[in-house]
């Protein structure tokens, strides 16, 4: 009996020959990037959970910023990537940017969800409530999350790849442009934000906490890059597969005439 590994390898070579290119989403670069990220994240966990001191006021709850703040920053970056990719598809019909926009939206939904969950978990012990309507960033993040879910639901509608790309790109563009307005409106509306204004610059954080947060930013950036590369390649391979299928489909279509 064939061992499963070689069966997998065989099917991989088959796909590779079919596509005329590598059928993997990984590469030597992403392998080392992934490994370094894992080690770094373990370091963040160790420093954040054990070494960094508890906050005078917030206690151990402060440790959640090592996840919350990088995730929030990542979510907005992903939205930016999706908005730029949407514009580039509409303007130049660039498939590369279309696939990038889709990858950005999927990772953005994940990070935005993470931001919301960690924010609420932190809010409970600190503010005494999971959800604080007066908090601009939390409310904006929720709207952003809903917009991105809408983007993905348009992506899931199916149909012609170019037509789905255009529909989704308009949603990405509209979402990206309206989020600042959402932020502004919520800001005026609440006008009494409870959010930590800027824990980073008020100088109250311990040096070790700051260092851990810095490391967490770097590791989050690496993790997001790793996910982006893989998600992008999945989308790219899907597009290649469609292009490859085209030649076969054309031959099959012409053969209808013979019947």
């Amino acid at each position, binding site marked *: 009996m064939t061992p499963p590994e070689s069966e997998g390898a065989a099917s991989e070579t088959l796909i590779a020959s079919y596509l005329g290119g590598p059928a993997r989403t990984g590469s030597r670069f992403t392998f080392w990037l992934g490994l370094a990220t894992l080690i770094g994240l373990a370091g963040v966990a160790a420093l954040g959970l054990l070494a960094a001191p508890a906050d005078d006021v917030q206690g151990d709850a402060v440790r959640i910023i090592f996840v919350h703040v990088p995730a929030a920053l990542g979510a907005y970056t992903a939205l930016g990537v999706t908005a730029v990719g949407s514009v580039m598809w509409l303007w130049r019909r660039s498939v590369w940017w279309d696939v990038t926009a889709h990858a950005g939206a999927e990772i953005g939904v994940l990070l935005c969800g993470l931001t919301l969950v960690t924010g609420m978990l932190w809010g409970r012990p600190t503010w005494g409530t999971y959800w604080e309507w007066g908090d601009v960033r939390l409310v904006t993040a929720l709207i952003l999350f809903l917009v991105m879910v809408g983007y993905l639901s348009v992506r899931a509608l199916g*149909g*012609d*790849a*170019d037509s789905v790309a255009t529909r989704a790109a308009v949603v990405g563009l509209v979402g990206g442009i309206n989020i600042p307005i959402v932020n502004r409106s919520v800001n005026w509306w609440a006008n009494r934000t409870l959010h930590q204004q800027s824990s980073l610059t008020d100088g109250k954080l311990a040096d070790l906490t700051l260092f851990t947060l810095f490391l967490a930013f770097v590791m989050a950036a690496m993790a997001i890059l790793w996910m982006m590369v893989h998600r992008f390649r999945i989308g790219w391979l899907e597009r290649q597969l*469609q292009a490859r*299928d*085209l030649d076969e*489909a*054309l031959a099959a*279509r*012409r*053969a*209808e*005439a*013979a019947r």
Partner: protein
Amino acid sequence: MTAVDLRGAVVLLGGFPALAGVDLSVERGDIVLVRGPNGAGKSTLLHLCAGLLRLSKGNGDVLGCDLGADRAAVRRRVGLLGHDTALYGELSAAENLQVWARASRVGETDVPGALERLGLPPRLRDVPTDRLSAGQRRRVALAAIVVRRPELWLLDEPHAGLDSSGRQIVDSIVEAAAAAGAAVVLASHESGPAGDLATRTVTMAGGALSEGMAQ
């Protein structure tokens, strides 16, 4: 002068190659009948020539405009009768044609004449088109093309749903248009009466024109 010039045209609809490499050339004054079974790609071919679809492969010109870069210019100059009539059901025949004439910047004054030419009784002109019969709606849709006086006529099953008087009217309109220098492409699943009208017949199957079938 060439009105339609397609070279290896491929059109994908939802990933499916509805057109799988079509070479077609139509001169002004020609009446070309595209014959073929259901699903051969005839309607897609007409929509492509109308500038409504994007070429996935190959290239083509319609009325001297490139189908890649200049489809908007193509759309302004063609007349297309599809399976559906593209009429607003709540509006009357006259209203539909007025909207259409004003949108495509041709005289509204031709509207009554066009409806008369298609033999739509005056009492039906102000009735919402969704209360008309299928054949009557088809006449209104044809009148919309007459109003526009296009340089390229694209008629999908021009005789479908029409009685014998309607068919005669369509034939005379098509012949008059061709005589005036317009190009006409008809699509039909049967050679039938439309065959007598055509100056040339090509056969379509499997998203391509069959070789050697042109007369």
